[in-house]
């Protein structure tokens, strides 16, 4: 059966091919561009095209494939970089040069490995499992602020929204490097090409700190940069999550990172608007919330069909317009996610990274995960956590007082507390991604905070005995200078 193009608008084309199914894959035009059926009417089918429609002519042929958009699952995925339709980018570069031109023939996954065990799976269909489990094992990220204050659970989900320049990508890449999981699937969804180049460059030389193997061996990268076609951007997170599920089904712990979900939502909006659908909030289609809920539901700890236990954790960055968290994508995610790391612009301007706001963020996994860490790392993990949070909370109210009376007007004990919390912020919560400090194992994290709190207690005791704050701080500074702080320090 064959048909013709009868209309072209933005990323969609209208065709007159009968007998198509919803979400069926079709090839469009002389160059056989790939597309997917998104709307069916008698004599008029709308196809979203995974390539630029530029240069496409009316009357060009359209052919059905009888299949949905699928990914190939099998060996040879790890260590590779694909576009949103799972085309291997390195093979495309070798075959066609540095630029991606529409209609380039699909290169196959040829890397010399056995390809016998391949399976095709439709990307929009979640892969089956026996049952979902409700366990809360910690997922250690190596980021102190997350592991200590807002811990993640394997099989959970988290979002981190932040305005531009708040370090979303850097945080996401740090977690991709250091997280304690078997497989990482990283989706660069509508983001910068140069950042992907940087990431590949870094990953090529780094090691997985947990298994001491080259980092790329456990990583799959799916990338659709912002200038690549918009519909393929929409498909990219489904392509990625399907590959992630494939490894989950082998009983592995998988982490899916997407940067950024907002670009996916915008692609959805662009296609919706080309389909002339009735817009919901801010022009997003009204099904944004349900699509997101479906996507979040693919995370979880499962017992696989053959009785293994695997997990899929989802971590998504969000780029809210104007840094305003009341926008629809952030709000829709908040209803589905288990943890929320709010990236704060004023922290970022101060170069406090990761710029996770310690009052606004939350983790719904904290009780269960902290219980695990109490057992596994240190029995006082939970207690230290409570302590640190209380101090930070107290600092916040002292800050308000200081704004009225000045820092000179504060009591010595309060000034000591503010100094301690400053150290907690600078040396503990902040973490420089460009130095060795970029990764902190749970034991290190625990020791670091215990150390800071013990120093504080000792100083407080001496203050109570009548020593002056000045003397105490002079001793503390000398001790600090002798140590090896990760960041630029300053005398108080």
């Amino acid at each position: 059966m064959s048909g013709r193009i009868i209309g072209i608008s933005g990323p969609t084309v209208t065709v007159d091919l009968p007998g198509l199914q919803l979400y069926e894959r079709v090839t469009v035009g002389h160059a056989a561009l790939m597309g997917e059926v998104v709307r069916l009417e008698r004599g008029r089918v709308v196809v979203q095209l995974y390539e630029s429609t530029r240069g496409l002519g009316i009357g060009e042929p359209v052919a059905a494939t009888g299949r949905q958009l699928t990914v190939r699952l099998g060996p040879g995925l790890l260590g590779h970089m694909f576009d949103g339709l799972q085309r291997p980018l390195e093979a495309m570069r070798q075959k066609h040069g540095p630029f991606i031109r529409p209609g380039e023939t699909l290169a196959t996954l040829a890397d010399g490995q056995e390809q016998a065990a391949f399976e095709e799976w439709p990307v929009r269909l979640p892969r089956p499992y026996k049952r979902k489990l409700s366990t809360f094992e910690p997922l250690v990220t190596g980021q102190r602020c997350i592991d200590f204050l807002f811990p993640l659970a394997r099989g959970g989900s988290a979002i981190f929204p932040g305005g531009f320049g708040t370090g979303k990508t850097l945080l996401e890449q740090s977690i991709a490097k250091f997280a304690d999981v078997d497989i990482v699937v990283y989706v660069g969804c509508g983001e910068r090409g140069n950042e992907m180049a940087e990431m590949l460059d870094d990953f090529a030389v780094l090691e997985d700190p947990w298994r001491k193997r080259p980092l790329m061996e456990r990583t799959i990268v799916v990338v659709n940069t912002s200038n690549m076609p918009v519909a393929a951007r929409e498909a990219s997170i489904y392509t990625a999550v399907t590959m992630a599920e494939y490894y989950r089904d082998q009983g592995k712990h998988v982490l899916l990172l997407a940067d950024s979900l907002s670009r996916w939502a915008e692609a959805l909006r662009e296609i919706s608007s080309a389909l002339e659908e009735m817009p919901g909030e801010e022009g997003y289609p009204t099904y944004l919330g349900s699509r997101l809920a479906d996507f979040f539901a693919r995370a979880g700890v499962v017992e696989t069909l053959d009785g293994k236990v695997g997990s899929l954790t989802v971590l998504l960055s969000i780029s809210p317009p104007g840094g305003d968290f009341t926008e629809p994508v952030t709000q829709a995610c908040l209803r589905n996610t288990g943890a929320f790391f709010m990236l704060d612009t004023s922290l970022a301007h101060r170069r406090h990274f990761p710029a996770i706001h310690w009052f606004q963020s939350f983790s719904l996994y904290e009780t269960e995960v902290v219980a695990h860490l109490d057992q596994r790392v240190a029995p006082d993990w939970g207690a230290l956590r409570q302590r640190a949070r209380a101090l930070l909370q107290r600092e916040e109210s002292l800050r308000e007082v200081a704004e009225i009376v000045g820092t000179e007007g504060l009591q010595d004990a309060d000034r000591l507390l503010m100094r301690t919390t400053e150290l907690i912020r600078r040396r503990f919560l902040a973490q420089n991604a460009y130095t060795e400090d970029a990764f902190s194992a749970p034991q290190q994290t625990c020791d670091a905070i215990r150390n800071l709190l013990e120093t504080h207690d000792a100083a407080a005791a001496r203050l109570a005995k009548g020593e002056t704050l000045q003397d105490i701080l002079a001793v503390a500074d000398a001790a600090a200078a002798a140590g090896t702080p990760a960041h630029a320090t300053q005398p108080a």
Partner: protein
Amino acid sequence: MRLSQHSYATLRSVQGPLLFVDAVVESRMGEVVTIVFPDGREAEGEVLRIERDTVLVQVIGDSRGLDLDHSRVVFTDVVKRAPLSLAALNRTFGGSFQPLDDLPMFLPEKWAPVAGFPLNPVARERPQELIETGLSCIDGLNTLVKGQKLPIFSCAGLPSREIAARILEHARTSGGDGTGAGARSTVVFVALGLTYHEYAFYRRTLEQVRGDYVAFINLAKDPVVERLLAPRFGLTVAEYLAFEHGRDVLVLVTDMTNYCDALREVSTAREELPGRRGYPGYLYSDLASLYERAGRIKDCPGSVTMLPVVTMPEDDITHPIPDLTGYITEGQIVLSRELHQRGIFPPVDVLPSLSRLMQRGIGKGRTREDHRDVANALYMHYAEGRDLRRLEAIVGREGLSDADKRMLDFADAFEREVVNQGPARRTVVETLDLSRALLERFGLHLP
């Protein structure tokens, strides 16, 4: 390929820059059409949408004088392409690539589609080679590297063009060793909706610089649709110079706000659903299709570096234009009205400014070993001083401790001595020496 030229006199409607043509047998998306006016005048147009045999065409240029009965539209069967040749160097063109300098059009060596093709992410070379701009606030704290896109966020009335001109004049692609002996970049200058006065200023700068340049000029009086085309011509030429002739190309586009307004104008005429502030929902993708063309390619010597100027409407950094730009570009240089009022040039507010690609461009073997530590220390202490200014405004200087007072003084001195540099060009090494001296004067030692 069509064997004959298709010419239609079946215009159904004209709305501003948009035409609907009926009964078109064959057409393609993005196809270039020639519109023949009743008086014989010709203008170019582009196919925007096709629904069966009705085609929506956007006129590039002035649509005044068109009618429904005598005008004709000729379909050319090609998408918009740019003529390329080294003969374009040191020439000035209009927004449709027509020569503006009284010289004849050059003979193109080749043609390339203006929309370009996305660069395969695995083919990108990581940008990490310094471009020394001669400005301390950029070189020291927000270092620019080859292949980066770093916009200048300005406000109406701030000297963004003086800063842009200074960068054009002083930028050198290497010379990070402190000698300042690097090479000049080839400049591609794209003016979008500028007033004649602004254009004359840039004109003088380009002449003074005496390096190679290609200019595309769309002034405020010129057709709005050309504003959408001019940056694409500029970038196509830049890619040609960089990736086929190995040149380091610096693309200065000013002002992106005019570009986005032109896009909004056309989008509204197309009756598309407006997004935030009336800009189309695809503004992000559209801007990305320009900004993402900056970069470097593996095993290829040239580079395309982009410096777009964005004037923030109402000084608002959350306005969709600076907001979406910031999400795509690798950092931003933010100008401050307050610093400008205090006579500081360049009035760059370093706290919200950022260069994402700085880390690999600085340090040992690139600039100097202590660069990262110096920059971090400056940031940290300056941020602290700025915080204290707020406190000082409430409790007065007397309410602050001596250490706090020192940080306040440091912040002032930093603005006056490091950010402020007047007309002088500073090498990176001079910037670092100056910064170190300042830190030491305030007893702030590096680790």
